[in-house]
């Protein structure tokens, strides 16, 4: 008797589930996009705090850039610099003065109207002492900022800067009254920030006072995952609607059906081996060259990414100005590597420790590098550390011999012009060429100078840039209007619609 009741109950549940399923399926095909939809986004990028000049993390860039905060300029999903809060601008004084004409009637989420004073405050925040913005050194050429009227900003530079507008795409325009913005926001974007739970979610709601076209959905929730498998399962069970960047090519098989869409787009995310160029044994260019030539990058890429991704030969990716294929400078050649190592004074090989972040794919890449270097007599020990340990030990204290990491932003050659950068590469010729390239009169001339600098850096094997990640976005098939590229880890959500 008892048994049969149980079975009936189960049957009832099954019927209810079937009805619910047919209802949702019916809804999918019939109704149009819902402008009050909630979009759940799954990401593997972390948010550390809400301030991008205080090391907020890639998760923050992804959630906030273009969504909550806007810059004077915007880097589009295809990598083009477009005017955003700057309606127009004028260059004068031989390229040393930029006059920005601001868009009018732009409101912050707090209700205040944006003025030139806010722009000045935001620019100074990036270059201020204590700022940890990656654009700090590039924008340090700003010598003074004037605000002749509320809608005009005049920026004076100490030297010409052809990539100023590009660099300004990183700079968020913030209400000058905000104060500490590590746990609050006041931007001009199409979304207001509503809540943040560290390590879990960050939620945005449509801002109805936005100056431009309103967002096509009402609520966006970024769900932060630390494990790729858990994220995939979340999409499979529809706990999230979209994955901003799938990290595992072998997981895609489960999404190759009518319920999901997979796109393969452009990213600026690069994997590299960072040598501490001031610490033995990697203070010798020959040792770095030997290590670089001992690694079969094509095989490494296919090991990690299968058929996806692009092998790199330098810091530049194909969309960077001045890109060229320099794989002939440090080719994969084990016997060449051996002879370089011997010439550098290590005929019997050497031993060093590679600090390896514990997130994928670093441990697997480290194992590959370990086996590759063993071929030329280099014994590499793997020390696995967490991301926060990495920032402290390596980025801040520079207490390392070599490490691996991925870099999410594009156009990183400028870091080699800074002898004080954490990899401590010091080549005055590179520094000179990079600063000349900033003063170039045309994009063509800039590219030519960067090309020369890049060749010097590769000839020194300052770091070993391994490969460019693919950007694989996997979404539920009910979603459309989402970005398919991941330039500088931006992810504009305002055009996403859900059927």
């Amino acid at each position, binding site marked *: 008797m008892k048994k049969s009741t149980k079975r009936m109950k189960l049957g009832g549940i099954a019927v209810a589930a079937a009805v619910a399923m047919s209802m949702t399926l019916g809804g999918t095909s019939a109704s149009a996009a819902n402008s009050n939809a909630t979009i759940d986004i799954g990401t593997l990028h972390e948010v550390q705090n809400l301030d991008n000049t205080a090391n907020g993390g890639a998760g923050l860039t992804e959630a906030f850039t273009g969504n909550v905060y806007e810059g004077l300029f915007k880097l589009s999903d295809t990598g083009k610099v477009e005017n955003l809060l700057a309606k127009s601008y004028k260059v004068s004084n031989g390229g040393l003065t930029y006059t920005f004409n601001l868009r009018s009637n732009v409101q912050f989420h707090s209700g205040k109207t944006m003025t030139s004073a806010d722009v000045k405050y935001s620019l100074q925040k990036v270059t201020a002492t204590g700022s940890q913005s990656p654009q700090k050194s590039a924008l340090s050429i700003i010598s003074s900022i004037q605000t002749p009227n509320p809608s005009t900003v005049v920026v004076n530079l100490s030297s010409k800067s052809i990539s100023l507008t590009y660099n300004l795409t990183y700079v968020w325009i913030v209400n000058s009254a905000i104060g500490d913005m590590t746990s609050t926001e006041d931007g001009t974007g199409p979304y207001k920030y509503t809540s943040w739970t560290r390590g879990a979610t960050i939620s945005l709601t449509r801002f109805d006072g936005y100056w431009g076209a309103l967002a096509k959905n009402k609520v966006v929730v970024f769900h932060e995952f630390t494990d790729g498998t858990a994220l995939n399962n979340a999409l499979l069970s529809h706990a999230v609607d979209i994955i901003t960047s799938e990290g595992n090519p*072998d*997981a895609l098989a489960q999404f190759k059906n009518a319920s999901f869409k997979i796109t393969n787009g452009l990213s600026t995310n690069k994997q590299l081996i960072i040598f501490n160029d001031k610490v033995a044994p990697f203070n010798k260019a020959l040792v770095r060259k030997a290590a670089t030539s001992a690694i079969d990058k094509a095989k490494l890429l296919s*090991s990690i990414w299968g058929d996806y991704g692009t092998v790199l030969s330098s810091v530049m990716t194909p969309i960077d100005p001045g890109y060229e294929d320099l794989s002939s400078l440090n080719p994969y050649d084990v016997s060449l590597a051996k002879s370089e190592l011997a010439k550098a004074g290590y005929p019997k090989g050497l031993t060093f420790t590679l600090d390896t972040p514990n997130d994928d794919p670093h441990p697997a890449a480290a194992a590959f590098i370990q086996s590759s270097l*063993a*071929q030329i007599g280099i014994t590499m020990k793997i020390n696995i550390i967490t991301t926060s340990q990495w920032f402290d030990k390596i980025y801040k204290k520079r207490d390392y011999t070599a490490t691996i990491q991925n870099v999410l932003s594009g156009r990183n050659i400028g870091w080699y012009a800074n002898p004080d950068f954490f990899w401590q590469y010091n080549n005055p010729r590179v520094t000179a060429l990079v600063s000349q390239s900033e003063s170039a009169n045309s994009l063509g001339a800039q590219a030519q100078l960067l090309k020369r600098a890049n060749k010097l850096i590769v000839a020194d094997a300052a770091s070993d840039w391994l490969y460019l990640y693919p950007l694989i976005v996997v979404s539920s098939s009910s979603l459309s209007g989402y970005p398919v590229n991941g330039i500088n880890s931006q992810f504009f959500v305002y055009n996403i619609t859900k059927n």
Partner: protein
Amino acid sequence: MTRKRRHSLPLIVGGTLVGFIALMALISIFWTPYSIQDMTGGRLGPLSSHHWLGTDKLGRDLLSRVMIGARIAIAVGFGSVLIGAILGVILGLVAGFAQRWVDESFSAMFDILIAFPTLLLAMLIVAARGASLTSAIIAIGIGMSAIVARLTRLLVKRVLAKDFITASRASGTSWARIIFIHILPNIWTTLIVTFALQFGFAGLTEASLSYLGLGAPPPNASWGSLLQEAQATVLTSPVAAIAPGVLLVCLVIGMNLVADGLRDVADPTLRRSR
């Protein structure tokens, strides 16, 4: 009856399972099909005559890695059981002999240590010493010593209450001699069963640690790290997860059966009661 019990079925099955793993570990010291650094196989290659268990993402032979994993599991089992046994028996003897508050405070300490999750203890030790095989062995050994100590204390107390101890004391035998001729011979049969159980448990804990990236660092291929690596590719190449998983199960079940069998054979109280 007695002969039948000596060849108890659990002991034979358990011994075979563990023996197989031990043999694999032993062979791996002298020979593996491919070197651990060899990445010449294809990405996620299928099972073939060249690679019996296929290859992993980096093109390394899985059979070789699984064999090395067996070596690590056995090493961790022996190492941590040894540490647990030495520490545990000594502490247990002290507590067993001690009176009142010393005994009570020792017992309380054992209870706290037993309540403390071994995995958490291991994570703390790994955080302090860095991830290595030795850290894992020490951590697991310390975690297990409390269980051994509590058991030893109990057994010692039970033996001490016996009349022959009083007689031995009365005839002037030193405590040290009593420990070696009366106490240890009377308790080791029970202890050995616990050690066998703990051997399997140690292998499992090490796998958990390696799965979390806190075990033996690469290129050492612990079963736990093999499972972790296989997790991402389980849809395309399930053998990479199944092989270390099955072996881990074999080790734990095998050691449990061995413990069962040992108790059947060695425990005099059980023998009498049947």
